[in-house]
């Protein structure tokens, strides 16, 4: 399996079409091609973090500054960012638009990803974070735009889960 170049491009175009000018990210395999495009784009400020919880603070700062910001992370990074999501974003009513690589789910060959993949949806539900799965390159652009719009109107974290169907090329 390899990361889909075509669909990475489509997701990045969706981010651009949503008017996003600022991204925070912790690089991971499925997000790699996306982040390479963000690095090359002069209209995007890309901030790489050492640990995903930092990005919750950065996203809050970007929001206060009036910037259109999205967060890119793996689902295990989402789990690592938990207190920031709860005790900064949810506590103060700060929107977060998170694009989350959904590792450890259907088709996952690597044992180390599986436990995080199994609990991700349950944690999102427990935290009352609205989420959708992105599987289809034909509609992912619209899903990204709608996720951002909803985060801003609800003043809430929202999550779009980037699945294997979208991010990997089928053999």
């Amino acid at each position, binding site marked *: 399996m390899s990361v889909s170049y075509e669909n990475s491009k489509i997701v990045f175009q969706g981010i651009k079409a949503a008017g996003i000018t600022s991204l925070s990210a912790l690089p991971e395999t499925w997000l790699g091609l996306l982040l390479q495009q963000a690095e090359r784009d002069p209209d995007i400020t890309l*901030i790489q973090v*050492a640990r995903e919880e*930092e990005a919750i603070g950065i996203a*809050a700062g970007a929001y*206060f500054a*009036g910037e259109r910001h999205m967060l890119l992370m793996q689902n295990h990074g989402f789990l690592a960012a938990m207190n920031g999501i709860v005790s*900064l974003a949810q506590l103060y009513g700060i929107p977060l638009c998170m694009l989350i690589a959904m590792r450890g789910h259907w088709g996952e060959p690597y044992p180390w990803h599986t436990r995080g993949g199994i609990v991700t949806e349950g944690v999102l539900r427990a935290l009352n974070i609205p989420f959708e799965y992105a599987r289809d390159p034909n509609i992912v652009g619209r899903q990204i735009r709608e996720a951002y719009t909803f985060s801003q109107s609800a003043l809430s974290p929202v999550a779009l889960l980037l699945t294997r169907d979208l991010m990997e090329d089928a053999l």
Partner: protein
Amino acid sequence: MKRAECIGMLYPDLGDKVVVTIMGACAQELYDLGHQENFFYLQHAMGLASSIGLGLAMHLPREKVVVLDGDGSVLMNLGTLATLARYRPKNLVHIIFDNGSLLSTGGFDSHTTSGVTDLAAMARGAGVEHVTAVDSVMAFGEAAIDAFGRDDLSVIVAKVAAVGPNHYGMDLQLPENAFRFKRWIGARKGGGR
């Protein structure tokens, strides 16, 4: 020296800065001097004040951003020092009040007590060029003047006594603080700055 003395010294210069402070004693001491719309009090999420400061500074290049942080909070998010150094926002002043104590939770020693862990050395090691460690009010004032005037990322580590206010409480709800803080910034941007 006391943190309250340092904050009192800074206060007259904070009127036009974007200010983020950590929870507890630090927030209360700033609030007690007189709340301003440009102050954001991070009353939880320990460790993220400097990350908020980075997000603000990178997107508001014409504003000076000041973060009032503490040893306990920085120790919860040490990666932030490396991220700050990497992106090096010229308009960010990161002040770490190091009282060697988790004061608000009963005064347990933090890792910086007795000089075991040196946060200034860690900031330098992370790659921050302008790091100043101070332990007197006079030296703190000089370091703050330098940092406010410098067109580069500055970190000040101020050794302070483990004492705080004798009361806690603010007439300010948390989302209200966030809304008004954002509105203050927006008005400055809209004002042609």
